[in-house]
């Protein structure tokens, strides 16, 4: 199946179907550009120009990962204003991405003809039909106004150069601080009126499946887009679709003075500490020149070879301690320990419904944080600290993009980039098989997906693929 649109970039999925069920799946990323090769020999600071341009939808996340990797080389930390500014800019992108995903990429699949006979179809079709639905016409202006934060704090979006190792290039004045709060208030109004039909405070306080069920039933499904989704999820049992391997990773999201706001960690039956030195990338099923074995990204090599036998993607296979992990909003909220998400995962694991609920819950959690960060900005105090690059060093930068864990690993020698390796969220989620034959997270999630009568390109596969909010241009880069 392919191409899959309404994902960022190009994607192909090969399915082995037996008795109206997906038996196995192979996920293929079909575009290679070679950013890791381009960066070799450049001045380290140039990574701040090149890496955001890996991806137009995770551009700021790429900036932050690069800036943190460079900060690690320099040994610099941002002042409090710098942390707050970076958090606000990053949160702006992440929340806008969640909205874009829900309204433009994910929901339109439920307005497909195949569902026409379903009782809930008229409600969903009117609201979410691709291009014609009323929801996108309300969401796009709200998103554009919300992104005025970028105009104020980052110059533009995507592809800003505002984020630096030691803070940002753009100090915020008193009147701008006031304006930021007004922008956030306007966006809160859209969320409360249109997305949730309830206050952000009530959404983040949903602390159990019982509370969620009660909330769904308290009002008509037509009262908000979140309820519309939850109604469809109930009717289609979306909690039974796209079960992953339930091992979740988060690098920890948003930072103040080095401490993440959403916790860092690994979830494997229970909360565990994350050791990023245990990350490796394998190329056994990738169109990459043969390597002796999986490598930590500091030692990583990117050398494309279109003729490798048994390979089926440009994507490498990242593993943590040799294991497959799933990343994204669900992983982030699970690792952080939000009670609703913990209970949903404990009941039904990682699946299409829970991934979407986690994303929508996270919007409310993050926007409330943004309001607090904007208030904490201190006009007149420093926004950026400065230090020079050493001639020889290595460093890494970790960040949570909307769709999951993103890492940059850099080595410099004689003041130039010797090696630069990037592992993006969808590299984790859409990785191919590894040298042990273990399928990647999406490949696992697709196994067992059922077909509706007469389907050649199952709509269930569309839901599962998009539930990860894949970003294919980041995946391979």
């Amino acid at each position, binding site marked *: *199946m*392919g*191409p*899959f*649109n*309404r994902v960022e970039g*190009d*994607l*192909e999925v090969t399915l082995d179907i037996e008795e109206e069920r997906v038996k196995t799946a192979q996920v*293929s990323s*079909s*575009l290679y*550009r*070679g950013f890791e*090769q*381009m960066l070799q020999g*450049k*001045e380290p*600071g140039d990574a701040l*120009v*090149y890496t955001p341009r*890996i*991806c*137009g*939808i995770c*551009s700021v996340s790429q900036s932050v990962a690069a800036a943190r990797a460079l900060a690690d080389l320099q040994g610099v930390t941002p002042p409090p204003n710098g942390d707050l500014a970076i958090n606000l800019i990053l949160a702006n992108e992440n929340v806008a991405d969640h909205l*874009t995903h829900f309204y433009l990429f994910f929901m*339109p699949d439920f307005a497909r003809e195949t569902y026409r006979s379903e009782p809930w179809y008229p409600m969903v079709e009117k609201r979410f*039909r691709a*291009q014609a639905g009323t929801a*996108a*016409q309300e969401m*796009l*202006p709200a*998103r554009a*106004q919300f992104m*005025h934060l*970028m*105009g104020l*704090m*980052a*110059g*533009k*979006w*995507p*592809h800003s*150069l*505002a984020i*630096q190792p030691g803070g940002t*290039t*753009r*100090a915020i*004045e008193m009147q701008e601080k006031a304006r930021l709060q007004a922008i956030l208030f306007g966006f809160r109004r859209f969320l409360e009126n249109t997305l949730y039909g309830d206050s952000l405070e009530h959404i983040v306080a949903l602390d159990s499946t019982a509370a969620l069920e009660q909330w769904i039933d308290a009002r008509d499904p037509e009262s908000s887009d979140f309820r519309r989704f939850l109604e469809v999820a109930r009717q289609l049992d979306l909690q039974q679709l796209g079960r992953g391997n339930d091992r979740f990773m988060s690098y920890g999201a948003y930072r103040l003075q080095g401490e993440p706001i959403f916790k860092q960690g690994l979830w494997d039956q229970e909360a565990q500490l994350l050791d990023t030195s245990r990350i490796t990338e394998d190329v056994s099923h990738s169109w990459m020149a043969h390597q002796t074995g999986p490598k930590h990204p500091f030692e990583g090599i990117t050398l*494309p070879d*279109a003729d490798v036998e048994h390979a089926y993607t440009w994507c490498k296979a990242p593993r943590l301690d040799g294991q497959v992990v799933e990343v994204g909003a669900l992983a982030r909220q699970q690792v952080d320990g939000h009670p609703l998400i913990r209970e949903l995962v404990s009941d039904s694991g990682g699946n299409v419904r829970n991934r979407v609920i986690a994303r929508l819950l996270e919007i409310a959690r993050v926007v409330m944080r943004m309001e607090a960060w904007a208030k904490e900005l201190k*006009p007149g105090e420093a*926004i*950026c600290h400065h230090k020079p690059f050493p001639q020889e060093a290595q460093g890494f930068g970790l960040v949570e993009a909307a769709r999951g864990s993103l890492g940059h690993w850099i080595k410099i020698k004689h003041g130039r980039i010797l090696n630069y390796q990037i592992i993006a969220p969808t590299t984790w989620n859409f990785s191919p098989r590894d040298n042990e034959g273990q399928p990647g997270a999406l490949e696992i999630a697709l196994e067992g997906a059922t077909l509706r009568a007469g389907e050649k*390109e199952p709509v269930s596969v*569309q839901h599962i693929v998009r539930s990860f909010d894949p970003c294919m241009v980041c995946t391979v880069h």
Partner: protein
Amino acid sequence: MADADRQPLNLLWLQSGGCGGCTLSLMCAESPDLFTTFESAGIHILWHPSISEASGTEFIDLLERIIKGEERLDLLCLEGAVVCGPNGSGKFHHLSGTGEPMMKWVAKLASVARHVVAVGSCAAYGGITAAGGNPSEACGLQFDETIDGGLLGKDFTDQQGLPVINIAGCPVHPNWVTETLLQISSGELQRDHLDEWGRPRSYADHLVHHGCPRNEFYEYKASAVKPSDLGCMMEHMGCLGTQAHADCNTRLWNGEGSCLRGGYACINCTAPGFEEPGHPFTETPKIAGIPVGLPTDMPKAWFVALASLSKAATPKRLKENAVADHIRVPPKRRVGGKS
């Protein structure tokens, strides 16, 4: 309806060697929003990767119908560079579900399109995708950086006699795209509305320097020396705003922004070859203390004379503010004056 009996313009939007950022920028269109703008231009979206429902075979069928002439294609928009590698095979990007290199699909579709539009510097010239030795052998639709040719060849014209319309920028400003499409739709866009690089002159006849809020610092050569400083970024910080063709500081991005307003240098992203400046992006190369790249159209001797004169006359206010991240010295009231 703006024009009820007008035939809609069928638009097909493809992405290849790029980041998708031009589409994401386009979604920030305002006054009116993107869908309303398309509607006002009479544009019917046959397919766009981020907003259409069809995927898989339904989409591939559409491409085949267009190539056979069964579906009219008025506007072919390509976002992202044409990927020709490895060794000219195009295997670095095959269109999913077809096993065929994307570059072949683009060439076939361009031959039947009424207009061909390159959205962003990658599609126009190769752009960032062609940086650092160009590992994917990326090029633009009608340019390979500054060299005529690209995928379609330098003599390519569309069915209306226009070359590829290069809406260059990394990313594009949403209005560069919407206003160009509106002009195509009204039939008003002519050959002489494009500059030598195929860019719409409506934005490319301006310089980023126009409307730069740091103009007073520029005039006095009161220069920033580190990121977050308020001073002019031309002398030390690599800013190319005085040479870059675009209207970023008069049109503004995401409400009230621009690179300069965001506190960082213009890297001339609308120009072919911007991705390889030959020096670190945020450092100004100099010879004998004088920046190598002078403002467009300015004679060197004049610039040097002006710069030394204005440096000698720089007020204390500008000297101090130039190297601070917020205004330290406000403008004074003139003795006996009112302002």
